[in-house]
């Protein structure tokens, strides 16, 4: 018993070392932009760069549009499947998990080759980037919404609403969606954290997004990349933390397995 606990503490200590040493080192490194003193110079430099604001805003817009498009596509589909064709769930799930089999670099390659020629030459339209991001976040949105739907009794809720005279529209917006809010929010946060620093699609489709901007800063500066890394980590922490806090208080899905690397 005693030995087991000592071993457990040993593994946790080693794990913490591996996880926190790079974070601490990156933070300290980012403070050394001025010779001899610790300062926030790297942060002020990178945060005051107009490029930073422009690319970050762009990625922010893409993230919001991806969340809206992804939810608009998946939520009605998932509700429809649960209510009308429960047996199609496996089929939809297979499709929603397909992005696990198609890595982002392969996806973007296929998108470029498919849409840079007639009949649909949309390779330089943001529509293609957003569509790609929706594909990347498919598995996470689907899992979130699906487990959210399984946690509520959808059929009884909709039948109750309709027997009280509610229209489909009212049922959806005033009964079903409010009951799904934890699932929807956690899908949104996860999608946000995937899209905001995404590199592969953005760089290949030549968009001035935050991911390619960070990569470019990495090529040109020494301390600023570390500052960006710290900022990104805090952003990820914020999103995932919010998501977990939400699911604790609202009882939504806890699964946070995700990310593109």
């Amino acid at each position, binding site marked *: 018993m005693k030995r087991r606990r000592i071993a457990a503490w040993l*593994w946790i200590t080693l*794990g913490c070392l591996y*996880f926190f040493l790079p974070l601490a080192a990156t933070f300290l490194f980012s403070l050394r932009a001025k010779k001899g003193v610790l300062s926030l110079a790297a942060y002020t430099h990178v945060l005051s760069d107009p490029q930073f604001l422009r690319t970050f805003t762009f990625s922010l817009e893409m993230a919001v549009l991806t969340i809206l498009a992804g939810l608009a596509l998946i939520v009605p589909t998932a509700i429809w499947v649960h209510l009308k064709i429960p047996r199609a769930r496996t089929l939809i799930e297979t499709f929603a998990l397909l992005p696990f089999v198609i890595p982002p670099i392969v996806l973007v*390659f296929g998108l470029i*080759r498919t849409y840079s020629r007639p009949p649909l030459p949309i390779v330089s339209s943001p529509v293609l980037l957003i569509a790609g991001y929706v594909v990347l976040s498919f598995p996470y949105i689907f899992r979130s919404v699906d487990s959210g739907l399984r946690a509520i009794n959808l059929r009884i809720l909709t039948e109750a609403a309709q027997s009280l005279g509610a229209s489909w529209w009212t049922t959806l917006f005033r009964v079903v969606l409010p009951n799904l809010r934890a699932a929807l929010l956690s899908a949104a946060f996860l999608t946000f954290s995937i899209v905001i620093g995404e590199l592969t699609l953005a760089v290949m489709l030549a968009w001035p997004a935050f991911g390619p901007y*960070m990569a470019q800063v*990495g090529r040109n500066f020494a301390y600023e*990349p570390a500052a960006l890394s710290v900022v990104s980590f805090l952003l990820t922490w914020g999103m995932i933390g919010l998501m977990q806090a939400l699911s604790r208080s609202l009882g939504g899905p806890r699964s946070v*397995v995700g990310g593109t690397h």
Partner: protein
Amino acid sequence: MARILARVPVRAWAGLLPFFLFAAAFMLLPAGTLLVGSFLDAQGSFSLANIAHLFRPSILRSYLLTIEVSVVTAVGGGVFGFLLAYAVTLGGLPRGVRGFLTTFSGVASNFAGVPLAFAFIATLGRVGLVTVVLKTVFGISIYDGGFNLYSFWGLSFTYMYFQLPLMVLVITPALDGVRREWREACENLGASRLQYWRHVALPILMPSLLAAVILLFGNAFGAYATAYALTGGMLDLIPILIGAQIRGDVLHDPNLGYALALGMVVIMTLSILGSNALQKRSARWLP
């Protein structure tokens, strides 16, 4: 499939049309383009040359390198992730530690790509903080000792940062399913700790463990952003090769890129199928 179709009215299927149209346009069609392209030559007629070219020594070496990185980080991340998950589930640590590890793993498994590469460059790069401290304070020069962040082992060490937490997240539920009674029964029958693990716990956990490791394998196999930002394309991983091919025809053979991508999809599909099959087996024992 035919049976599913038969009993449901056509109108019900129409509700799924938007989803299937989207999936067809942005998943199946691009994948189909790559598939067809793999079997065409530059003039657009059928050819097996691209597939044959996959077995060129240089391409084969790239596949091997990508597989090696994925295997090393999947097994390494798998073993250490398992030990961490074991520590917080069966190791008798305070509950708070578990909550913290789960939250942190959620964050760390999402912290990847360019910022992750930066963090490791700031830590273990040539002028990284740990590199410098080891050199000036302890007199150990890790780069003279053969370590290089921008190499195979450096990249693998960096990948571990998202592999390890993913393993923790995936394997913790399986460890939760290990029942105290099994251990007690073993102890009553006079089994040692080693015998308990060797003959009871590990065989039960094995399908979940393998499935998790395969998931980790796929996770590293498809990674592009981290490798790109860390090595700048110095290591010829398959994703890096495909990336270079998209930017310009570096392989001097436009259709070889399709075949490279097809090879990736085939390997990913095999690994996911294997993982699913194993998971079904483990469902017999674990919730």
